[in-house]
């Protein structure tokens, strides 16, 4: 009887959990059983493992082989246990010295010919391996770059089972981590520049305000007016990614199977789900639990076009995650928490007929019905609202526009001022200001307060509406490098407000 044990990892939520792949080989009628709560892919591993071992030139023991994936209560999903199983079988059958697999984590799918294929969640696995005190990680070479983001880990990227065995035995040096494929890097053009937004140049300042203060945005306009194009420019205006943010995004995208293994994600995500998406698609769920769009937009932008067409349950599900910055997916046996801190951009047509205001044929009742379909509580999270119209031909011809670089410089400066002001509060931008902090830190001049009061009276603002305008005014003041909020800043913010009466109308 021989026994071997190999460290593997299972992705759960946005992190990885340690799994022991234990192999027991004893005399008896040949059998190959896998136990330990695996899904279909795990059970089918038997075929792949057997074929890969044989086709790689190793001996498949003709004995009674039992593979156990421990702990039993953890659900194992997917084909990433193929390679650890094969390695464990080889170790248990004496073809690989057990000490060679000690302190080494192994993940990877196997093809029938013994090729090692990529799996999801590499960064999370690498982080978990390091956390558990493992020194080495054996994994598909295409994912090596991603795993290398964890500094203390010795990354062994391999392409075949045979290579894996030889590397473990020490007979072969591990191949260097592949460079980022130049072709794939060029395929993603470095981002969209603001000057591309022909005809909407005048909207750039509004985007600047939104990006500088971290505010959410609502765009109102007929179809074909470039709302999506404008929204797509927003991630490039947000401040550059901090290393911690980049790691978080990489981890999430890797777990979702979106990341091609190119290493660190360099750009803030932009997610634009179609309005037919379900609640679980938007915030996460399912079995096994997968992250939703709002998590994939973490540290980036979530764009909801045609807000009125989204289902009510989906929009309701978004409320708490947008407020808390995280969402907890609850199952009977487990609660998984995903991060959800993102900027929300919502867009809607002004009315069902979709024509511009002069040509609009909708009655007031049609308009009211359409507005009711927008989610009031979601709109309540939005500080800035702008109307978008089809640009005139003259506007389209205008070429002068600030480049993203100029605008970004102003935004970064404004953010720095906010960070300095918010030191010690745990917050990082004006959009996060609570009512109490807003009162303490806004620093509005008495004239500005009076101006805000006038606006309040004229348009029957609620307390929340009042706060929204003040938050945005604070951002505008920061962009203008003004220590205090002045009446002019209040005016600009008032002109960008989301009307409270509108919220009362939206259900």
């Amino acid at each position, binding site marked *: 009887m021989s026994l071997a044990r190999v460290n593997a990892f299972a992705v*759960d939520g946005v992190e990885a959990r340690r799994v022991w792949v234990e192999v027991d080989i004893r005399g008896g009628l040949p059998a190959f059983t896998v136990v330990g709560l695996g899904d279909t892919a795990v059970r089918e591993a038997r075929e792949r493992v057997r074929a890969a071992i044989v086709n790689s030139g190793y001996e498949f023991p003709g004995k009674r082989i039992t593979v156990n994936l421990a702990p039993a*209560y953890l659900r194992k999903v997917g084909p990433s246990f193929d390679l650890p199983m094969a390695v464990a079988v080889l170790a248990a059958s004496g073809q690989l010295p057990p000490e060679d697999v000690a302190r080494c984590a192994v993940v990877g799918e196997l093809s029938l010919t013994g090729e090692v294929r990529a799996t999801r969640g590499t960064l999370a696995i690498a982080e978990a391996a390091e956390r558990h005190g493992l020194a080495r990680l054996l994994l598909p070479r295409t994912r090596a770059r991603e795993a290398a983001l964890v500094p203390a880990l010795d990354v062994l990227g391999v392409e075949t089972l045979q290579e894996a065995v030889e590397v473990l035995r020490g007979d072969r040096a591990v191949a260097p981590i592949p460079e980022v494929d130049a072709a794939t890097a060029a395929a993603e053009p470095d981002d969209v520049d603001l000057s591309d937004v022909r005809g909407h140049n005048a909207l750039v300042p509004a985007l600047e305000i939104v990006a500088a203060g971290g505010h959410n945005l609502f765009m109102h306009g007929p179809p074909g007016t470039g709302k999506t194009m404008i929204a797509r420019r927003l991630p490039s205006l947000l401040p550059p990614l901090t290393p911690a943010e980049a790691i978080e995004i990489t981890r999430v995208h890797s777990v979702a199977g979106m990341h091609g293994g190119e290493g660190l994600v360099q750009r803030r995500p932009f997610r634009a789900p179609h309005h037919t998406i379900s609640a679980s698609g938007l915030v996460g769920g399912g079995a096994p639990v997968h992250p939703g769009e709002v998590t994939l937009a973490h540290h980036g932008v979530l764009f909801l076009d045609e807000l009125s067409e989204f289902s009510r349950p989906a929009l309701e599900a978004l409320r708490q995650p947008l407020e808390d910055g995280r969402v907890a997916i609850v199952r009977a046996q487990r609660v998984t*928490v995903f991060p959800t801190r993102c900027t929300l951009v919502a867009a809607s047509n002004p009315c069902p007929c979709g024509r511009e205001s002069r040509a609009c044929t909708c009655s007031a009742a049609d308009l009211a019905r359409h507005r009711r379909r927008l989610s009031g509580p979601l709109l309540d999270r939005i500080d800035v609202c702008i109307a978008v119209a089809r640009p005139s031909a003259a506007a389209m011809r205008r070429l002068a526009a600030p480049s993203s670089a100029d605008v970004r410089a102003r935004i970064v400066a404004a953010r720095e001022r906010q960070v300095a002001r918010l030191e010690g509060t745990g917050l990082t931008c004006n959009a996060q200001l609570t009512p109490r902090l807003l009162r303490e830190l806004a620093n509005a001049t008495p004239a500005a307060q009076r101006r805000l009061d006038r606006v309040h009276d004229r348009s029957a603002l609620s307390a929340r509406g009042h706060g929204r305008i003040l938050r945005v005014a604070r951002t505008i003041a920061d962009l203008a490098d003004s220590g205090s909020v002045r009446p002019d800043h209040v005016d600009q913010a008032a002109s960008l407000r989301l009307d409270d009466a509108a919220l009362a109308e939206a259900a």
Partner: protein
Amino acid sequence: MASDARKTLGRRGEQFAVEHLTRRGWQVLARNHHTRFGELDIVARDGETLVFCEVKTCRAGRGEPWDNLHGAKRNQVRRMASVWLNEVRERPFFVAVRFDAVGVLVDERGHLVRLDHLEGAF
């Protein structure tokens, strides 16, 4: 000082555990019930089953909650359970008794990162 921090951490974890059980429709009968062998974290009712829950909390990144649920601890919980059954007369009738474990991972701000509930853990 360190033990105080551990205590608060433990309390947070228990709170998350209680919320989770309540969400599942369980009825929590007792929390931190003191016996001469120690404290029972949670005593609850799942239908007709009486469940003794041991809650283990730890900071994300610093190990796993189960690291401290070793044999001696399990025996302690069993002993405390029988004390509870003897002492507490005012309780509904139960068909079965079970021991569960709840592992809670918490981040540095005290927010929930993950919760695992193992039924019949020991």
